[in-house]
């Protein structure tokens, strides 16, 4: 044990003592980038898939050297760049879909049988807007088109409430 305590050097860690401040700064940057990536991950979830993984690091924990920390920092910055790009592209698609939905609501007959989901316009939930004829075949022949709004899946809380009511009733 005394031998371990006496090993108060960085030689065993394959790092240089005079680089400590640089390493501390890189660790600070990694922290900031990780926070930014976490925020983008939350923003993108369910809309677009973004990668947070970094390849080729150690399988076992150790003190990283300056070069390795730089690589982690750079890889995180790359991931953030990719995430931002993916989110921007997705936002463009959602804007186009919202425009399509606006046109569909204004004139359903112009966009027959078109379905736009809440996911398509970047909204949570699983409802859809569907342009379809009123009264089936008759509506098709007469040109009576409308947008039917599906409110999506029932919420789990409501289902639980139904189960509870049933349990109380029985």
């Amino acid at each position, binding site marked *: *044990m005394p*031998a*371990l*305590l006496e*090993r*108060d*050097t*960085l030689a*065993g*860690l*394959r*790092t240089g003592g005079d680089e*400590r401040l640089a*390493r501390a700064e890189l*660790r600070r940057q*990694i*922290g900031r980038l*990780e*926070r930014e990536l*976490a*925020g983008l*991950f*939350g923003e993108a*979830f369910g809309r677009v898939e973004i990668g*947070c*993984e*970094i390849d080729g*690091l*150690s*399988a*076992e*924990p*150790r*003190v*990283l050297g300056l070069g*390795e*920390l730089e690589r*982690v920092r750079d890889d*995180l910055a790359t991931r953030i760049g990719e995430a931002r790009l993916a989110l921007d592209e997705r936002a463009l698609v959602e804007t186009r879909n919202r425009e399509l939905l606006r046109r569909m609501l204004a004139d359903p007959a112009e966009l027959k049988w078109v379905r736009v989901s809440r996911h398509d316009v970047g909204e949570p939930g699983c409802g859809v807007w569907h342009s379809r004829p009123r009264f089936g075949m008759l509506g098709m022949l007469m040109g009576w088109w409308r947008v039917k709004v599906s409110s999506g899946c029932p919420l789990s809380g409501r289902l639980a409430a139904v189960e509870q009511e049933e349990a109380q009733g029985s």
Partner: protein
Amino acid sequence: MAGAEATGSRVGWDPAPQQGWVAPHVAAEFPGLGIAWIEVDGRPGKSPDPIRRRLRDLSDRFYGAHAIHMRERPIPWAYRVFFRQIGLDPDRTRTPVEQLALDRLYYGAFTSQGLPADALTIAIVETGVALRAFDADQLEGRLCIRDSAPGESLAGRPGELAQGTLTIADERAPVGLLFGATAEGLGVSRETRRVAIVSVQVKGVPQIAVDEALWMVAATLGAS
């Protein structure tokens, strides 16, 4: 008291948490790194009903949105950052709280694994603090976080540890990798009669959260 020598116990604690130490050159690299543990009597076994109920309640309070935004919260974020800083990818080697969150979504609930695992699950999910359990009777002296010395290995694993691997060690040898495998024979087993609950604190994790996590495990195990 992280990242350096710490002594003593806190008033009103039973069992009192013990503070470990961090090798000075590791503490210099990672200010805020610390280790503390408590020892509690108890043998592994099926969790009693109140603990199973508590796990169910915890499952009901934990939704997908919690898991998705977990990494934005201060304590889980602090562990993710530390993982990055020590070369682990937290999206491959999950932090303890994120692993539990993933399991919760995968299995649909925090499933009971018996004691002391359930007590750890409750404390980790409630506080976000990284905890793990060892067989207290197999540990010798104070625990510490240090890098591996040349020629050291982890019991039960072939080959030597790469020099500089960060480990949790007692006064004899490494007892586990920091956020990794436990040495053979030192984990909780059927023969365990006394459990050591170990917390690893990193920069950004407040002391009060660590205290709460240890207290929560002690209270849960003590009530069983």
